[in-house]
């Protein structure tokens, strides 16, 4: 492929340096997106858009300055550099701790993800037909309750970047991504409603649609939602029970309660007024947070993943990060600023959503390390408990300590066997209780797609989170009444 605007990126770095900035970084960042949206098999509309521009970040007078422009001319970019430098310098008198970056071996590289089935090889008619077929199969899958709405959207995007900085990094990348999401409402007015939002996403092309097989599983899921409305009973909430936590929830839990609190910028308070601080303090490396089965890894280099990258937006080469290792806090997510503060090397966690965003510390693909059990063995080991397979409501406090997950599909376990469905069980526990209560994980490793939000202005970046099914012992459940 041809790479556009390299000259403007290099010009920005040169201009910033000539204005006296101690550090200059420039990034041409483009997103090309297309999407198709439908309700109950009927198309609403199609959209196709482009967002592109140049982002400039500087350290000047010890303050960090950022500016972006979508005027892609020499004048436009030079003007942005001037703004970034001038306003950073104007704030230098308020800086108590001047910003500095760690020394790193930075990349000079080009990489691309190739779609096996390119976007342009899949016609609009095929996509429309897929959406109509999905509605037909889902809406006809139940007869007592009904599917009130099935909203569906398919999104394609291509992200292209050219990054350079005054420390010598030069990275070019192209990553295509596909996503498919839906919102289904199943209702029986006399008994209630079940709702499920879900989305698939990954890097690659239309080959992913076949892999996700939504047409294959959603009719079956819909029958299950009907069954929940008709048959589900209250979960046990009067005494602590064992819980098999489904991989979908485990994935979200590690994202929320291992990934986020391990972000070194949060630990240092940089996001204190937005996403909050962290229960992890700077001196807690090596402290126990869970049982020996609790290992959480964040790895940007997983092929096909939604959070895939090989170099971060500061030019640092990516690698897997072991956030919790065998129950101990092991490593934080760093960019070059936090690496300098902590006296370590950056582990390439700096990501920016688009050209209007500063790179900040983000997760990529976070997962709980699988164990050696089968799913059946996990359940067999429970005398009385609950298996919670999926969720809808969730939240966690701003230090990532108290977390809550409202179960959607869940079953009672008695004497090692799955019994009847239970409705709205709630897992509400602290981070330490969760990781400390794990006594086994199965061998399965499933990933789920998400858009992780952080920063100001809010930046949503594509991630995966996942894990195996895990068993936790002796936890008191709540229920949504």
């Amino acid at each position, binding site marked *: 492929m041809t790479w556009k605007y390299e000259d403007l990126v290099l010009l920005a770095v040169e201009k910033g340096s000539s204005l006296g900035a101690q550090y200059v970084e420039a990034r041409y960042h483009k997103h090309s997106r297309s999407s198709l949206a439908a309700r109950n098999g009927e198309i609403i509309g199609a959209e196709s858009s482009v967002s592109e521009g140049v982002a400039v970040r500087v350290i000047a007078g010890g303050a960090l300055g950022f500016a972006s422009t979508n005027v892609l001319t020499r004048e436009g970019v030079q003007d942005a550099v001037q703004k970034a430098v001038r306003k950073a310098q104007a704030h230098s008198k308020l800086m108590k701790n001047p910003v500095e970056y760690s020394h790193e071996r930075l990349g000079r590289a080009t990489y691309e993800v190739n779609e096996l089935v390119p976007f342009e090889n899949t016609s609009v008619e095929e996509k429309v037909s897929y959406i109509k077929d999905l509605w037909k199969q889902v809406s006809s899958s139940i007869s007592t309750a009904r599917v009130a709405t099935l909203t569906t959207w398919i999104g394609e995007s291509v992200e292209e970047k050219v990054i350079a900085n005054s420390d010598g990094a030069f990275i070019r990348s192209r990553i295509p991504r596909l996503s498919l999401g839906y919102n289904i409402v199943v209702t029986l007015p006399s008994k209630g409603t079940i709702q499920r939002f879900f989305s698939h996403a990954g890097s690659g092309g239309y080959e992913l649609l076949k892999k996700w097989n939504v047409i294959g599983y959603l009719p079956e899921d819909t029958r299950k939602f009907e069954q929940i409305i008709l048959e589900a009973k209250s979960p046990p909430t009067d005494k602590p029970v064992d819980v098999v936590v489904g991989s979908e929830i485990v994935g979200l839990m590690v994202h929320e309660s291992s990934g986020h609190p391990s972000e070194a910028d949060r630990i240092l308070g940089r996001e*204190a007024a937005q996403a909050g601080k962290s229960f992890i303090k700077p001196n807690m490396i090596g402290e126990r947070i869970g049982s020996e089965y609790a290992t959480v890894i964040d790895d940007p280099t997983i092929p096909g993943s939604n959070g895939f990258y090989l170099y971060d937006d500061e030019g640092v080469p990516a690698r897997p990060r072991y956030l919790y290792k065998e129950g101990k806090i092991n490593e934080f997510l760093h960019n070059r600023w936090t690496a300098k503060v902590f006296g370590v090397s950056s582990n390439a966690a700096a990501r920016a959503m688009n050209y209007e965003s500063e790179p900040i510390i983000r997760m990529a693909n976070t997962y709980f390390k699988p164990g050696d059990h089968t799913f059946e063995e996990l359940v067999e080991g429970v005398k009385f408990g609950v298996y919670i397979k999926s969720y*809808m409501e969730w*939240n966690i406090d701003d230090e990532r300590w108290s977390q809550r997950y409202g179960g959607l599909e869940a079953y009672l376990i008695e004497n090692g066997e799955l019994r009847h469905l239970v409705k709205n069980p709630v897992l509400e526990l602290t981070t330490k209780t969760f990781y400390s209560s794990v006594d086994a994980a199965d061998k399965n490793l499933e990933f789920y797609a998400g858009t992780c939000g952080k920063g100001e202005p809010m930046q949503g970046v594509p991630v995966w989170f996942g894990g195996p099914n895990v068993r936790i012992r002796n936890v008191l459940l709540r229920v949504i009444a």
Partner: protein
Amino acid sequence: MKEQLLEIGKKVVEKALSMGFDEAAVDVRSTDSLMVKFANSEPSVIQNWGSTEIGVYVTKNQRILGTSAPVSSLDDAYKILSNLYTMHTQLPQSMLYAPLPEPKKPDPLPGLVDKHLIDAINEPSNVSEAIVEAVNRYKIDSFAGMFQATHERRALVNSKGAELFEEGTFMKMYIRAFAGEGSGQWSLGSRKLKIKEVEHVAETAADFAFRSRVQEEVPPGRYNILLSPMVAGNFFNYIADMALAHSVLMGSSIFMNSKPGDKVAAEKLTIEDTPRNAELPGSTSFDDEGIPTYDKPIIEKGVLKTLLHNTKTAAKFGSQTTGNAGLIFPRLWSLTVHRGDYKFEELLSEMKNGLIVTNNWYTRLQNYVEGIFSTITRDAIFIVKNGEIVGAAKKMRIADSFPRLLQNIIALGDTQYDMYWWEVDTPTRTPYILVKDLGTSKHTA
């Protein structure tokens, strides 16, 4: 700038029609914005943005298509439009199609531009210094937050003959202060920069932090809870969003099984969409279909008055547009919750025993149709006994349903505050709101 943006709009509309589209609407937006972000009581980054972008809505034989692109890439935008035109034959007609309405002349909305905010974009350090000074008047450990100033110019041109322009400035800010175990946060959204108001945000945050520096555990259960404007703003963002007609269509609304005229809240509650309030960011004189905006109650004295429509959703629902059009779906402009007649102390007397929750985040729903939600508090929670504040509580969740919360409103304060931050995405003017018997929850271990 006005002529330049209108010219771009006209050019793109003409181009789209010449390609063969039946209708076209183009929104051209030029934005200059600056944000100073604070952490650990010092600036953490100073961010600047400048962009000019177009959003395009086109139809052909009742197919709806759209694009957006930077103005510097108009050729790219034309290429996309050309591809969309080729693509339209493969699309079925849109279930949401309705013709663009005939344009009407909106009454201009004066007072949208403040020179002080334009100056702050160019030279923000005075505002930054005022914030640092104000927050440090209190005994706090540290503070974080942000101040943002934006200058926006917007032109709308469509194939029905609309040629409209509006210019405005707005500011958004919030400060979070920390003291001991405590923290406090407050926010402000405004079309004008007034240093006194900026300082008030910083002082309120610091005051809450200081007064919550020692905290005690409160057991979960049902409480009378006084929702601060931060929390009320967050909840009413969700509830008003559910009154957008497409939320009802898409299965994301507690109003799926309601119709205008139904009683959905306590009689004391009136909430309006207020695009004509020039003091609030989000105010505008025309929507994206070129229809003049007007203030309208969503819920009036507890009764659902209307869903919010553009012409497309209005046609689907057999209703009229409410002047809330975005290019495809309807949208909120700014919200106003009517004030009540209770002074702050009277709200506490009415509550007798309960909690004041000053801030929350991470509101998530188990089910949008039934409105079952939970949210987790952050920052100061004050414990009220016999109508007096007697201490501060540790974090907890509010876990209940929006329909029940709406019915259980028993009093509203007599002073409104203009909230605008991460968790109050649509600028909202609201007083303190007292709700009885609201469910709370905490982790079990």
